[in-house]
């Protein structure tokens, strides 16, 4: 085994000494304890003994040279042994001012922390999480690149940058994409309600896991019911009846009357349903409160009032906030089925198609029936497909057999 020949420390204040002479030559045999070389300090000349027995090799300092204490200046090897050469001792004058003297020994390898979080856990730094929540970033979906696989600030920033790239695609000058020959009729700045709608829709699309279920229901009984209300002088719209049905169904399926906030799903104990209303200013969604506890006539009065205020541009922010579910109806435009977008932070939205007469199988016969398509979009993060489908089944049941609501 190789033994380094180290210049011994000489007192507490001596940094460097001068090598005076070697008493042995390169390749010569030495015995532990015999004189090997001499050094000189500012006070004295000293003989230094061989630290081991063997063959003197790799002499790295010559007489007259200044050497640092504790630096290796040769090796003593077993006969026949090979070892790497001793690096030439650094002359003190060449060391940068302020450098520590002896070479720094390699630190003991520290126990490495695991590079990924334990299964089922997401590590995110407080800084990254604060940033993510400020910008509504769905950080649960990010891949962490920080210590222990944690999501760190740069991961959130990378996501935000990628989103910015989506929102504002780089301007291309290629004529194929923006031919200068297309005449612009009008430029409309994205501002006001349009800007709010744009932001909300994009946010919903990007931060939820939307699934849309579509089912066709027999609305013949519903149409008959509404006709009878009108005959009785009670002005009730289909929207009012759907609000009434959805309010009661949500009572039975609270998972759809919910919001996801951070890592918490809140099931609301109140049912407030927003009703999408098309106006000249764009889409507005006034909210009918406590739908599950209101009588149909009360719902009808309330929707009529809200729709009038919406069209007149008189809705207050309070009248448009606090919804826990939304209904949107495109039936008047002859739409059957569509894929409504969730109104955040809600869990689901019900889209209602046109009620139209169609041939259908009824009591074993082909008959002309009133039919309606219902489209339920739900956020799959909060609820699975099967319970969402059961909710839709319940609505269809009450559409087809509204008398069951009397129970």
């Amino acid at each position: 085994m190789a033994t380094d020949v180290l210049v011994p420390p000489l007192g507490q204040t001596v940094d460097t000494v001068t090598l005076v002479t070697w008493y042995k030559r390169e390749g010569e045999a030495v015995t532990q304890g015999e004189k090997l070389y001499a050094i000189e300090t500012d006070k004295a000349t000293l003989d230094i003994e061989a630290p081991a027995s063997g063959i003197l090799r790799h002499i790295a300092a010559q007489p007259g040279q200044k050497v640092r204490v504790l630096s290796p200046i040769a090796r003593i090897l077993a006969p026949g042994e090979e070892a790497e050469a001793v690096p030439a001792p650094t002359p003190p004058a060449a060391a940068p001012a302020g450098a520590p003297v002896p070479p720094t020994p390699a630190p003991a390898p520290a126990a490495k922390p695991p590079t990924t979080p334990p299964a089922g856990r997401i590590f995110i730094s407080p800084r990254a999480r604060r940033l993510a929540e400020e910008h509504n970033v769905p950080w649960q979906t990010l891949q962490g690149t920080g210590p222990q696989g944690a999501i760190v600030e740069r991961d959130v920033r990378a996501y935000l940058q990628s989103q910015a790239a989506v929102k504002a695609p780089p301007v291309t000058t290629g004529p194929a994409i923006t031919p200068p020959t297309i005449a612009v009729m009008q430029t409309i700045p994205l501002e006001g309600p349009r800007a709010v709608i744009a932001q909300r829709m994009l946010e919903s699309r990007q931060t939820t896991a939307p699934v849309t279920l579509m089912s066709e229901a027999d609305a013949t009984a519903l149409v008959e019911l509404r006709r009878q209300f009108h005959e009785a002088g009670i002005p009730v719209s289909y929207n009012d009846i759907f609000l009434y049905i959805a309010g009661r169904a949500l009572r039975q399926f609270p998972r759809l009357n919910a919001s996801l906030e951070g890592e918490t799903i809140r099931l609301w104990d109140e049912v407030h349903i927003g009703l999408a209303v098309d106006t000249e200013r764009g889409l507005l969604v006034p909210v009918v409160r406590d739908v599950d506890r209101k009588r149909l006539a009360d719902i009808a009065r309330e929707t009529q009032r809200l729709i009038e205020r919406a069209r007149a541009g008189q809705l207050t922010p309070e009248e448009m906030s606090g919804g826990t579910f939304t209904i949107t109806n495109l039936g008047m435009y002859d739409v059957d089925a569509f894929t409504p977008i969730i109104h955040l932070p809600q869990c689901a939205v019900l889209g209602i198609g046109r009620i139209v007469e169609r041939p259908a199988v009824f009591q074993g016969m082909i008959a002309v029936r009133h039919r309606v398509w219902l489209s339920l979009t739900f956020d799959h993060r909060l609820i699975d497909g099967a319970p969402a489908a059961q909710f839709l089944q319940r609505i269809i049941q009450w559409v087809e057999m509204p008398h069951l609501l009397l129970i």
Partner: protein
Amino acid sequence: MALMTIAEALRQAIREEMRRDPRVFCIGEDIGIPGGFGGAFTVTLGLSEEFGHERILDTPISETGLIGVAIGAAMAGLRPIADVQYGDFLFCAMDQIANQAAKMTYMSGGTVKVPLVLRAPVGATGRGAQHAQSLEAFFTHIPGLKVVAPATAYDAKGLLKSAVRDDNPVIIFEHKLLYGSKGPRAERGALSPVGEVPEEEYLVPIGKGIIRREGKDVTIVGKLLTVYRALEAAEQLAKEGIEAEVIDPRTLVPLDKELILDSVRKTGRLVIVEEDNYTGGWGADVAAMVAAEAFFWLDAPIVRVSAPDTPPPFSPPMEQFYVPSAERVVQAVKSIL
């Protein structure tokens, strides 16, 4: 401006304060004897020639005695600068410091002041476990003491002058490898930073830290010698495109918390480097403070680089392993990037 070592800057500070105020005097072991070193590290060298042995007062080898005398003199209206040859010897006088000096003002309802300055060399320099400790945490823990730790000649002079004028007991920790002591008192491996010191009157306020290097990726807090290890590490990291901010708090009590917090709010990462043992070290308190007050700004765990939980070893290679190196600081930074 004059270029000075820390030992020279301290000496000039003492000289100026003694000329300014006849109540100021020095007391210690072998600080003014003819032919002596001028204290263990030459700080008081030559002062007895100007001020005489009445004001550069040598005592027998009894830290309890000399610090007790200094505290009594301070309570009676003088402004003593007491020093011990090695900070490790402060333990001998622990009752005088912790029970008397630190508490008198509180216990007297503010009617008794203890304007004591206590200088103490710290740091491992090849002298074994009883002459090598970093003692800062023992004293930052005691309410009633101010604790300063200058790492440059400018700060050494400015802080010592502030300490002399402060009505509270102030301990100054000085690192042996930073003094720049010459001749037989030169320490092996010393960094001996030489810095510009103004000739005109100036003070460095107690309680204000300083940013030694600006960066945006990680904050490294060091004190005394580890400020220089942190700067070396920052230099290495810069070659890899990592920009480290290096903070020297200069005063440990009261700590310039906002300087550290502002930096962490910027960088999101904190590495604390000190030569003290890990458990209960001063850096543990800084880490706890930042975790409590800037948690939501942190982007990675706080990492501490310190000596292990053993006494400083005498063997020089072991001592080199024991004290934090720039390389360990670099590794610590990389572990949280």
